[in-house]
């Protein structure tokens, strides 16, 4: 299970960082979303991975799973959800006002080359 979770986090992060470095806003937004998914899973696993254990300490159970990272993940999900909405609206506004969806502006300076790189 550790391998599965770790490789999932790695894959999500790699894809997120790749998309973040793209020139147009939509892939960048997707990249941010993937990155926030990776971080949610990562934060969750920081309380150590445990299966079938309650998040409370009592005498009936041998172990417990750490509830704090779960609370943190909830907060992080809410914040990243809201932030994604904000960035989508702002990207849309930038596109509508300037007629270009490039993050770095000034696409007119580009001479040939592959578009969107």
């Amino acid at each position: 299970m550790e391998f599965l979770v770790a490789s999932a986090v790695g894959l999500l992060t790699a894809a997120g960082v790749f998309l973040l470095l793209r020139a147009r806003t939509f892939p960048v937004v997707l990249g941010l979303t993937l990155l926030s998914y990776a971080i949610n899973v990562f934060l969750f696993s920081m309380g150590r991975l445990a299966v079938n254990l309650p998040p409370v300490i009592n005498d009936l159970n041998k172990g417990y799973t750490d509830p704090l990272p779960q609370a943190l993940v909830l907060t992080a999900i809410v914040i990243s959800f809201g932030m994604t909405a904000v960035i989508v609206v702002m990207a849309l506004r930038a596109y509508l006002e300037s007629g270009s969806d490039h993050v770095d502006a000034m696409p007119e300076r580009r001479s040939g080359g592959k578009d969107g790189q």
Partner: protein
Amino acid sequence: MMHWIILPIVLPAIVAPIIVLATRRDIELARVFSLASTAALLALAIALMALASEGRIETYAVGNWPAPFGIALVLDRLSALMLVLTAALALAVLLYASNGWDTRGRHFHALYQFQLMGINGAFLTGDFFNLFVFFEVLLIASYGLMVHGGGAKRVRAGVQYVIINLVGSSLFLIAVGLIYSVTGTLNMADLAVRVPEVVAGDRALLHTGALLLLLVFAVKAALVPMHFWLPGTYANAPAPVAALFAIMTKVGTYCIIRLYTLAFGEGAGASAWLAAPWLMPAALVTLTLGMLGVLAAERLRQMVSFAVIGSIGTVLIAVALFTPQAMSAALYYLVHSTLTAGALFLIADLVAERRPGYGDLITVAPRFAQIGLVGALFFLGAIAMAGMPPLSGFVGKLLILDSARDVLGRTLIWSVILTTSLLAIIGFARCGSTLFWKSAALAGAIEIAPPRRAALPVVAAGSLIAGTILLTVFAGPVTRYLDDTAAQLFAPTGYIDAVLGAERGNE
């Protein structure tokens, strides 16, 4: 338990919704609420500073949950100083904005109050995850303020600003997760207790987390190589917002000072002074690049933005020495550079408003209204920013140079600070003479309709300049307070006992 400590967070949090709900159709009423709230914040911050200056560290357990289980707010000399600085800057900037900037978009005053709530919270909190949340609060408000008034260029710069900060927040969460996984705590004081006890095998993880946090704070503070967002953001944001943002880079600086003196300071065992070897070279390069940018800037706002980067470099050079004397000098320069940068952003806008068609481009234009007065303000601000006598920039740089007298690499530090001061002098002198003196060579004058309350913006900008003058005149008492602050920072047991002591006593 003192309830006053939470008021700098609660007051703007209550006023902001009132402004949204009750005063949305009446801009004058919104201004009254916003100004009253900010003035009350200033009075409150000064009262808290008077309390903190006695040397006791006050804590507030939110919801009466004892630390380290609940969230603790902590008021020490450093927090109190930052609160006063925030409120003073915010009041002057708000006065400026109330003369028309706040009507160019919606909800300016509400966003402004939320921004203050986030900044105050970041300065007061004693918990990492809570710090993250307050960072988000102040960032969300700043996204709104950044694109206030709209316009294609501004919104595009805003998108870049949001993206870089979202990446920063992601890194913050990774760092917090790593630190929690090793130490099992998010409370700063508790972290300071547990860092020396971390087993050798986990130390690499802890250091990764701590240095990732440094990276995050460096993004906020615009430290090289994470500075690229700042000139675009500050030069395109509405002028009063850019002036308020002068405190935002200081939030990053504050967090660096707080974390690396408290948890990774002298008592951290194998992790002692973790940040110093990374911070010093980055700060030196930041200062150099910032002041080179001052030389190269085409617009006044851009130039001030680069001066902000340079001043962050200067502050962090002194911070990276990690001695009480250098810390005191760094804090003095921090206060000075915040006030001066805020003033210069407002002055840049005064120039731009009086030169329609030219804006804040550093070019020769015909004479404009109040050229003498605005010019005088600019030269005072430029003298302070460049670090020439007699204003506070000179005192601050002198204190920093003096504190670097006995350290390794003194030659490098001294030569970088002195050379960049020369660059700044050249840059500001070139800009000032182009804007204010060469216009005399051109015939005619720019006529604009006189603004409604012509005195108010000049008074607002002038009050910040007056702040730097006061900082110079009262340099003695101020440095005494800052020396005490630095001493408190370098004796973290006081902080730890104040936060965890109550809980230990109850057991």
